[in-house]
């Protein structure tokens, strides 16, 4: 009986999210068309729409996260790993975000070996990276760099910005080999939820007894925030 009630709620949640996301998608694409139209007419007003698109994207990823987290809590989340070209995967994710970043004058660079391939769940990892890029949109000045490389049996994806860096209480080093790791301090608000999601996704990736993890540090090539995702 109880199971039935839960299933029903999962269905309601999924279908509501589905509907809402459809509307968001339409809104997003309509704005996109207005922007393209405006650009054609050389009208500068279209810049006003970028923040709108940004908020829509945030809503959209928030909903995806909600559904994923709900399923994870109910033990219904199954992971769909496959073997991907890392550069292809990151390009896909970055292209989705590039126009928005561009609108704020932020330059985004990708450094990734062309032939680097890895085993992971692309849907879940996209969610994490989208989220980090969304934050970087808000906090970086004019540079973001995404770097991917193989690092001691892990795939390391680093996202660095030139902002003021993460506040002290948000720094994380989950590296199990580092010894001095600090667990996630889940703040209230969406940042905390985003972090929780990232930790969860990283942890779902297990290979040869090794588990994925994240790091949040300051410094890096631009002296700003550095988010790192490690997948075994």
């Amino acid at each position, binding site marked *: 009986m109880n199971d039935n009630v839960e299933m029903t709620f999962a269905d309601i949640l999924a279908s509501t999210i589905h509907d809402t996301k459809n509307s968001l*998608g339409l809104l997003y694409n309509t704005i996109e*068309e207005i922007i393209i139209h405006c650009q054609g007419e050389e009208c500068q007003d279209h810049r006003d729409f970028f923040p709108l698109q940004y908020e829509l994207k945030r809503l959209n990823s928030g909903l995806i996260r909600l559904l994923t987290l709900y399923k994870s809590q109910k033990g219904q989340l199954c992971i769909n*790993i496959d*073997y991907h070209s890392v*550069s292809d995967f990151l390009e896909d994710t970055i*292209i989705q975000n590039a126009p928005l970043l561009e609108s704020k004058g932020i330059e985004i660079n*990708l450094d990734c070996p062309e032939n680097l*391939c890895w085993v992971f769940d692309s849907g879940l990892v996209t969610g994490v990276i989208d989220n980090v890029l969304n934050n970087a949109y808000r906090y970086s000045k004019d540079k973001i760099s995404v770097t991917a490389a193989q690092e001691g049996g892990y795939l390391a994806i680093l996202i660095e910005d030139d902002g003021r860096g993460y506040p002290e209480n948000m720094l994380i080093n989950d590296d199990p080999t580092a010894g001095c790791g600090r667990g996630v301090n889940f703040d209230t608000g969406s940042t905390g939820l985003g972090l929780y999601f990232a930790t969860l996704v990283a942890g779902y990736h297990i290979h040869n007894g090794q588990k994925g993890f994240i790091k949040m540090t300051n410094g890096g090539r631009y002296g700003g925030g550095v988010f790192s995702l490690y997948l075994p």
Partner: protein
Amino acid sequence: MAIITSRNFTNKSTSILDLRGKKVLIVDDFFNFRLNVRNMISFFRPKDIDEAATGDDAVDKISRNKYDIILCDYNLGTGKDGQQVLEEAKFNNYINYATIFMMVTAENTMEMFLGALEYEPDDYLMKPFTRDTLEKKINGLIAKKEVRKAVDQAVAAGEYEKALGLCNELIDNNSKHLVELMRLKGEILTKLGDYGQAVSFYKEVINMGRFPWAVLALGKVTYLSENYDEALRIFSDLIKSNDKLMPAYDWLAKTLQKLNKNREAQQILVNAIAISPKAIQRQKELGDLACRNEDLVMAEKAFKTVVKQGKNSCFKSPTDYTKLAKVLTEREAGEEGLLVLKDANKEFVNDPKAAVQFALTESLVYKKLNRVEDAKRATDKVMSILNSGSDKTSAGFELDMAKALFIQGHGDEAREIIRRVIQSNHEEDDVLENIQMFFKDLELEDEGHKMIDEAVEEVVVLNNEGVRLVKEGELVKAIDYFRNAAKRLDQNKVINANAANSMIVFMNKNGVRKEYLEEAKKYLDRVTEIDPEYRDLTALLLLYKQLLKGTSR
């Protein structure tokens, strides 16, 4: 050394996607969305852009046009969903390996991916997407199709050895599409029937990561190599870790049946249907299984769903209706069964083969209801449709005629025909099963088993004796023997093939004889007519041609 791509996304310089000469189909139930995507796509200057608002409309358009790119939304409202559109398009060969089919989705749902493992789209596209994303995805897919083109062509032509070689070459030089190519290689190995090698290949792949597709494929080839206990373990574990992986349930049920655990198999299918209720093939399987388990309540439920879902599916078949009608009759609801058959005749107009099956079933139902006159009328209908048809020699024709005769009370005549059909088709499991089913419908199951066993045994003994003569080199005797056998069983392909073979072996040893050449040709022609796909036919024809060549030299 690794090549590092350092790309700056602010100043893009990728080549622009060029769709000139291409036909595109956009499927979505939202008008605004179709407009949206149309605007995006027109930027790349395709030749045509078509739109469809429903799954049925989409299938219809795909069946009549050759599209290069199909963008199909998964959720299409009440009718068919995007997955069903894809399945119908692939099942009916409306699209092939060259077509790009992208599933557009509103959310990243695992259920959808895993449920689609057997009919997969080329890629998924998450809403909302931008023109840049679309461009990059299509560019990537075009490149990927190009990489595997030669292999796909070889597979489509049935040249699996060649395909395997090409695939191995690509795997050595292509890290980017490695998994794609490995999946292809596994499929080719399976098609080649080299299950042992396929098993070790998939185990190797799984060492890289427990990809659901690879574990499923490993289970399949383990099943095909008849290692059912191991297959059982693989599928059960897979479902434990991925409870939405629907094909794993189907394979688990198949495996359980091989292990004579039909009740458990039925329960697995029930579980699967609770998760994913739309799969009509699974419902059919459940109906058949429930019949075998004599769970008529479940069988009725399953076949009713099949009939309902079949109304807008390419998987609709006349037997869905006859099976439901029979189950209803067994459940003392013969009247309802008759209504089902009436509906069936409306669903399959201008289909004489279907009409015969419906009328036969109708006569069975009437017989159970003790409505002798009506049963007679129905069997008369069967005979009149059969007699007005053009095909009067096939096993199907003879069998249907015999069934009608049987129901009319001409049991002895019918038995004689059925016996002949069995002996002409002693290796055809579907024909034998069909006959057994008929006896079961008449509640003469034991008689059916006995008749089939005896008739088959007789042919086997007969054939084995001739084969022995050939093996022992008694070729003249063997020729004589098979000649007589083929006179009696002129529609049996095995006997005819062996008759030809005995003569070919003789001529290979003792030189060509004109009369044997002609006679062998007659037998080979018969085999070709009965079953052009018969396993030994290609080899026999080759030997025969070599003998012919020898005479002309």
